[in-house]
């Protein structure tokens, strides 16, 4: 059962990811991205990362994707029914991407990965919280500063009279 669910989640993720990059309509791309992000959240569930799943849904789906859709709406004339978009260098791009995929797959298959099968899923929230407040405190503070900076920067950049 779980393998079937995994297969479904994986195929939804990959197919909708292809939809993101191939769709002609910008808004369709955004919708596809929504499915991709949901699929990735599903993968996190399979990886026993409950906290990360929540974050993925909250930040990506609830935040970033909304932001992107806002962006699309603000930068296109809503009056036109189809928010079409054009592509460039699709031929050579697909060749290079495919080669990239092949090379990466070769690397993955040839490498003898260190792998320990864990026994039981555990709650990750308190562990991550402890790590953030102890081992990665400096990075945590740094990233909060960065976030603040990005906030202010974005606000300043998006003003009309820049």
């Amino acid at each position, binding site marked *: 059962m779980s393998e079937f669910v995994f297969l479904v989640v994986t195929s939804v993720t990959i197919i909708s990811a292809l939809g993101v990059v191939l769709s002609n309509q910008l808004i369709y791309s955004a919708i596809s991205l929504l499915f991709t992000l949901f699929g990735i959240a599903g993968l996190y569930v399979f990886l026993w990362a409950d906290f990360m799943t929540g974050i993925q849904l909250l930040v990506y789906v609830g935040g970033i994707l909304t932001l992107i859709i806002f962006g699309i709406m603000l930068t296109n004339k809503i009056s036109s029914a189809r928010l079409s978009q054009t592509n460039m*260098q699709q031929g*050579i*791009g697909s060749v*290079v*991407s495919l*080669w*990239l995929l092949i*090379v990466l797959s*070769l690397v993955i298959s040839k490498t003898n990965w260190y792998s320990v099968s864990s026994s039981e899923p555990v709650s990750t929230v308190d562990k991550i919280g402890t790590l953030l407040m102890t081992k990665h405190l400096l990075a945590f503070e740094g990233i909060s500063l960065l976030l603040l900076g990005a906030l202010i920067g974005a606000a300043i950049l998006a003003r009309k009279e820049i």
Partner: protein
Amino acid sequence: MIENIYIQNSLIILFLPLVAFVIQIFIGKRLPRQGDWISISAIVTTLILSLYMFVSMLQGYDSNFTQEWSFKWINMGSFVVELGVLVDNVTIIMLTVVTLVSTCTHIFSTKYLEGDIRYSRYFAYLGLFTFSMNGIVLSNNLMSMYMFWELVGVSSYLLIGHWFEKDSAANASKKAFLTNRVGDIGFFIGIMLIFNAIGSFAFTDIFNGVSAGKIAGTTLTFAGVGLFLGAMGKSSQFPLHIWLPDAMEGPTPVSALMHAATMVAAGVYLTFRIFPLLTPDALLVVAYIGGITAIFAASIAITQNDIKKVLAYSTVSQLGYMILAVGTGVYTAAFFHLLTHAMFKANLFYGSGSVIHAMHHALHEKHDHETDPQDMRNMGGFRKSMPITYWSMLLSTMAIAGVPLFSGFLSKDAVLAGTLSFAQQNPNHFLLPVFGFGAAAITAFYMFRMMFMTFHGKSNMPDLMPDIHESPKEMVGPLFLLGTLSLYIWYTLPYLNPFSTHGWFTDLVVPLDSAVPGNPTAKAIDDGAHHAHHLAMYLSIGVAFAGIGLSILMYLTNVLSAKNWKSRFGVLYDLSLNKYYFDENYNKYLYQPTLNLARKIAWIDWELYDKYFINGFGRVTSWLSKISGKLDFDLIDQILVDGSAKIANLMGLALKKVQSGKIQNYLLYVTASVIILMIVQSF
């Protein structure tokens, strides 16, 4: 940092006047009272510290007391130059003298230069001078001594030329500086000869090196004479004496400080310090230069009419005495004479300053700007009007004349005893004591001549007399203090015998053996001097009273007519009055030929060298440059430079297509490169 209290004190004494100098030179003018209180408080602090050191020296009463401190100034591998400070009894005495006279000068100057337009600058220069003089005294090596030596020269130049609006003052300052330079070149050569042989500037290293024979014979003689040449310049010894009388153009307190008590004594101090490395030959040179200077300057002083000129030549003569003493080996006697001389000669200069101040004031009241306030022929009978000045100057005159019970008697006696014993051991050099005793007689004569002409008899300008007053207390105070210090008692304590130099000084300043093999030991010299002591004492008392008596007969009681004697010795009188025509002869045989030579060289340089050689060279160069320009343009520019530019251009055109300016393109290249790299890596 530096734990030793003596070193600490001496460094404070060294640098405090410098601080005062810096403050005065930059903001002195804007301070209340033009900032003289800054200089005075700095110098009084140094005086207190010196006196503290002096008292602790007397408490310690250790003749071998020495403290040394040095730091690495230049440190380049094996080449190390250390500078440092040496504090011993001699240093402490010298520091006390310098700071005492300097303090007196500062206080005296507040009145003497009252209202001067460059009042604050004057005090700044006094600070600079005190700093550099203390530096000379404290140096434990020739290098820093040389630096301070030059600084002293500079401050002397600045102070002599204080009233540089007067041409005579400006010229005098230049003359002093340049004459000193002549001596300083010798000094520098001496330093370099020694450094070359020994590899150190420090006195102790040098003396050890000399005893070890690292430098000996003719080289050492030359090095010693070279160093002595520096002393000759600074101490105004024959034939470099010409600057000191002219230096009297400076303010009188400056004359008292620098050209009587301290700066000119620097030369003597130097010879005193380097005595252990002087060879017998060098010592002989030193002795003869000193002896000649002593009698020669004294003979000039007889006929001078300017009160400060008399004192100036007397200073030259007394310095000759000290140098003579160093040359004959009794160099502690030289230092003793330096000490007593500093006190009484500074006092005499203050006295003359007081007199000149009074004259100036009186002439000013009369609106008389023609009469020379320094000319003794315009004075006379000031005794009643200026009693303190008179008595204080009389004490010092007694001291310089060598009257018993006064300080000069003791030191002069020690010098003359040394000279006499030297001549007893080396009868060939009988002239040296003759010079010494002759100069002593003449000194007694002209000093009393000066006193009688100034203070006794009838006034030559009676209308001035009502306006001649005693000077203010700032000027009288130093006079009083230094006049008292002319008494013998201060120098012989704790003993009271007025006929023996034995006292704290002789206990604390003991001569060292010379480092040069072949010189007599300190004990031999001391014994000889002791042996000759009584004879020298009788002779010196005799000549002193002979000189004084002659002076009384000629200028006080007028039994002998000075005018008759003048005509009887007409040629000699003229020679003396005109200072043996030294300046004229220097001008005729030294300066003018040099100037002519310089003019001829300038003509050759301009007419021949410039016009033919330089211009011809220019023409050839311009012709060559035309050819090279052609080559440059046709060959290098057109073919090489432009060619490479064309190639670069073609390649750029080819590569331009890659630079699309589209980020996606670049990303494509990057990804492709990564893939290619990974593939290549895996094979």
